[in-house]
């Protein structure tokens, strides 16, 4: 269960960012922003054989005492960032992967929509509902 999910465009501006609880939103925005550095570092690390060897799932970007940040990059350099609460007994890696997979699928559906201009913020209701389903329900 994530506390914050963000979709970052290639140019590193957010296409979609949603967090729960709402009050700490700014903190999560900041976290996502700083995590972008880590993402950049990871995707530039591969070097020569670009997308071939680079896996889409980046894994744990960095943990803090409160939460962990996971990253995922598509081949078009669109980044997905999931912030997970640490107190939530650690989710399996596979669960995180499946969350990213779902995000990716929904994102491609949004892209397929001819009324969506790449670069716009994502306002698709289907995408919203999918993300909401992934977020922490408790609060």
């Amino acid at each position, binding site marked *: 269960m994530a506390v914050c999910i963000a979709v970052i465009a290639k140019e590193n501006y957010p296409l979609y960012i949603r967090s729960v609880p709402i009050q700490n939103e700014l903190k999560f925005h900041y976290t996502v922003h700083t995590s972008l550095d880590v993402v950049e570092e990871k995707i530039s690390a591969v070097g020569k054989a670009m997308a071939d060897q680079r896996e889409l799932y980046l894994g744990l970007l960095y943990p803090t005492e409160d939460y962990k940040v996971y990253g995922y990059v598509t081949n078009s350099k669109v980044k997905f960032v999931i912030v997970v609460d640490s107190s939530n007994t650690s989710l399996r890696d596979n669960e995180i992967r499946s969350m990213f997979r779902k995000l990716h699928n929904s994102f491609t559906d949004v892209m397929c929509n*001819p009324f969506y201009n790449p670069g716009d913020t994502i306002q698709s209701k289907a995408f919203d509902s999918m993300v909401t389903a992934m977020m922490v329900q408790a609060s």
Partner: protein
Amino acid sequence: MESLTLTDVEQKYYSDLFVYCDTDNTKKVASNGKVLDLFRAAQLPSDVVLQITELCGATRLGHFGRSQFYIALKLIAVAQSGLPLRVESLNSVKDLPLPRFVVAKNEQEARHTAMYPDLENQGPYQGVIPRPPARGQVKKVSAHEVIQPCVPTVEPQPDTTSPVVSPHHSPPTSPHAWRKHKRQASGGNVERPPVVVAGAVWTPFRESQSGTHSILQTVSSLFQRIVSICYFPLNVSLANEIQRQSSSGYDDPWKITDEQRQYYINQFKTIQPDLNGFIPGSAAKEFFTKSKLPILELSHIWELSDFDKDGALTLDEFCAAFHLVVARKNGYDLPEKLPESLMPKLIDLDDSAEVPDQAPDVGYSGSPVEVTPNKSPMPSLNQTWPDLNQGNEDTAIVHPVPIRMTPSKIHMQEMELKRTGSDHTHPTSPLMAKPPELSEETKLATSMKFVTVNSGDGYSSSDSYTSDQDPITSVVTRQRSNSGTSPEGLKVVAAPPPPPPRPNASHSRSSSLDMNRNFAAHPTGPQQSGVVACPPAIPPRPLPTQTSGPHSGHRSDEGLAAHSTTSPQQIPEQPNFADFSQFQAFAASDQPNDDGEKHPESLPSTEGAGPLRTVKIDNQEERAAATVNSAKGSIMAPPPKPVRRRLKSEDELQDEALPPKSNVIATVLATLPSIPRSVGKDKKAIQASIRRNKETNTVLARLNSELQQQLKDLLEERISLEVQLEQLRPFSHL
């Protein structure tokens, strides 16, 4: 101004145009902007337009009154037909085609016109097409009634097969209005003719949406007119029937009527002549943008209607999208998910009127596979499950990943496993033996499983436990049942044993326990202490590998290292293993009584060196443990493995010490209250059961350690016995 004689058609047409331009709704003056736009749309050179405006007197007046407007239109027609612009020509030129306006705004008309190119051919407008009476939705067409400047002269309207974009066809109601014109007294029956402009088709709908309209009725009324005009010009009854049909009250507001469908199909044809083909996203975007809906809503409509998420619209998807657009235009809110009647597979079957080769369409969109978990607009819980399952299945089995699976799914799998052939090597074959007992054991196993699960060493988190309780339980149950029951059913050493019911197993174990006591002379204390829940759910961890380390050497070490953390959970299974071997012997003798007797008998069956067997067992157990641990919830892969392991172990294990533990487990099973399946129950029930399981868990952990020690001893004994067997065999088989 000179008097202007217009044909009735012209009259109507002009009045429609006037209304269109009459954005201020003054009914007297057409707004200049609109008029000029219209004139520009006439595709005349600007000087001609200027001349026209001058001629009609608008420049004098400074505005376009109705008469000026009409004159201007007439002049436009004159100009378009190539005649010199003269005031005299207004009335002198007969058989003048209606002025044509090519304008993006008139796309609504264009659609209609495209549909009904022969509209103009309806020379017999003066024919009798009695319009269906008012449908109650009509807005008084006051304009038409009020202004009747000209005597309606019935003139056959020369047909100008206007191009697709010709606004000739735009006012589908113009003949309608014309007729109304004729029966002037008919009252504002007719719906206000859809003004020939952008949103013209939509606005009347919106306006007319009074009272009881369903979107169906509004749209259908329009279609009725269109259809009756075009296709059934003289078929009054049919027109009435259509109206009746439409107003008969559809339960489903989203259902598409035949006329609508025809309209949609025709529109589809304008974009994509091949009815089996696709409309690419960009073309669809342009088309629907014309409807003037906000992009956000169009985007939502697209999401709903593009069923297969391929970025293109098939005929059905297009119809659905168009229908949604029409609905939205009429003020209906967009649904969250695609209504049933708009789903492609249904629509395909309904549409029988149009497409000649329907089969490809049906084949394409008729497949229910449309509803892919990821893409289906229908929200379903199962959407999450496949992903998780896939992910879990991808990983190595050793990875302990809980899979969220609904109990139904698990049962399905169980049943599938049961149904699979009784392949000897098939890991699931034991399951086949006794499905009914499986359910029994499942119930018993639930409690076991809870304990086991909760005692997991760093396994899936508690939340996964809660959701996985039943699946895990059933998994464990299956394993347990296999382990516990299979030996009893074993007639032949190698055959997959039908799992006898667990209670029997417990009994047999207890009896064997007695024998074991005699045999092993072990203290029964630990056995009795272990009365508390001893969950046999999880297959034996490499505990045997640990204990039999000296026996098996490196292999057990590996197992040990890998699964040391899982050892506590192995112990519960150990008894099963031990039991299996004994039960195996029991099965042969039909009653488990004398372990001592059975052991020699079973020993021969276990051919091979004792150490080998232990190693095998170790590996099996360790693998079984691993699989079970990793699976936790994954039903498919892990259960077979433990089952297989158990089979082998049944064949080979000869540990007498294990029965005591199994006995403990049995007693635990008996003592544990049957915890109801958590899945589907309230959260509280689940939490309560979790608490209970945790408690039993701690007790079991204690028992575990004790049993481990016991196991060590027993395994040593077993080895010694096997050695003896080896020595004895040459003599016994001879």
